[in-house]
């Protein structure tokens, strides 16, 4: 009996962590997506394009670099799911929503950084990196998305 308690306790703690990770993670993701969709609709007026504009922009009164970055952490449930994927292969769908949220949040922050008087953000680039790797096992801790571009304002908008 005695030697069974240790592993059993480990198993209970593990299951607890997985379910906490699942419920908290799902709730956080749901709320985040609601916020993203609301703000995306609000900032829809300002285009963020990846094109470079070589020709002169005569009406432009100013241009500056704007950026936004977001760091999203994985939860315990997603970590386990991705850990299993490492064995079997295939698409790591558990991480897809994380990257998607980080990317969209970064672009939104970039637009917020540019402000409502911006006409267009040109030359937009997005970069991602994983940060905060856990010490044991070297699995991904959280991911960062960084979006940056050149915000253009025309004289009419001041």
């Amino acid at each position: 009996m005695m030697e069974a308690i240790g592993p059993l306790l480990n198993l209970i703690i593990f299951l607890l962590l997985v379910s906490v990770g699942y419920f908290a993670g799902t709730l956080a993701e749901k709320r985040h997506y609601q916020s993203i969709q609301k703000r995306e609709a609000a900032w829809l007026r300002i285009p963020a394009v990846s094109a470079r504009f070589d020709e002169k922009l005569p009406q432009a009164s100013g241009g500056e670099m704007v950026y936004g970055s977001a760091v999203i952490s994985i939860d315990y449930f997603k970590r386990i799911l991705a850990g299993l994927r490492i064995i079997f292969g295939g698409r790591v769908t558990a991480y897809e929503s994380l990257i998607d949220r980080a990317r969209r949040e970064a672009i939104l922050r970039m637009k917020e950084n540019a402000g409502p008087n911006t006409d267009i953000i040109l030359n937009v680039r997005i970069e991602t990196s994983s940060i905060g790797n856990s010490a044991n096992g070297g699995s991904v801790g959280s991911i960062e998305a960084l979006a940056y571009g050149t915000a253009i304002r025309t004289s009419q908008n001041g």
Partner: protein
Amino acid sequence: MVRYTPKLPEKNVNVTPRSHIRELFVLLSGLIAIVVVVYFLLGLVVDQLVPYVPPSFEKKIGSVYLRQIEGIDKKDPRQPVLQAMVDDMTEKCVDLPYDVEVIVVNDQLVNAFALPGGKIVVFDGLLKAVESENELAFILGHELGHFVNKDHLRGLGRALVGLSISLTLLGTDSHLNDMLGSSLNLNRLRFSQQQEGKADIVGINSLQCRYGHVKGATDFFEGLEASSSFRQLRHYFATHPAESKRIDDIEEYRIKQGFEKKALQQLPSVFGTPDSTSTE
């Protein structure tokens, strides 16, 4: 010039709409199924190979295990008594191709087990709990039975198989490894009920052979059963489950063989007075 009309995407192509719970369940059950199949297949292979393991190789494995045991008391005054009992039994009653050595460990565990290489490890806690020489002879005979049936090697093979699977398959991903490793641990060094039953038969036969009767064979289990508050500390139990079934099986075998029950033999004085927590 391209006309820019801002609009939101209708659907998110970057996120697969899939139930993660279901995915976890499918992957986890797949993994567990593979582990179980491999564990049992390798277990079968080990069972096939066990009869061919030479005693010299067994000794090597045993010494690895022995080095990990702490508190071995070479000067314990009870050791020569136990050794003499085992020597007597291996000479007259139990047929083994090698000599068996008894090792006394100064630990309160109520346990004894058979290590590869012909070593019977007996804990101080068990020696304090036994009340007659017959009872002790049965326990020693039972452990000798594990040697006769080569159970100690089977247990070892399964343990190695289990450990190898969890390390190879799961690599260094510590979270998964911890979980699966610990669930394998639960069954690792435990003999099956069938193996225990067979070892009990060897035990009772050696009692009959040594004393001409088999009284005391079930004393140990009965003592354990009666003092249930002490049960959690009784390590012997953890590896020897379903004790009442075993008592019944032993009794049934005794009647079938026509073995009698006569007076118990007192323990030699080096064993001191019996532990008060045991009954009878």
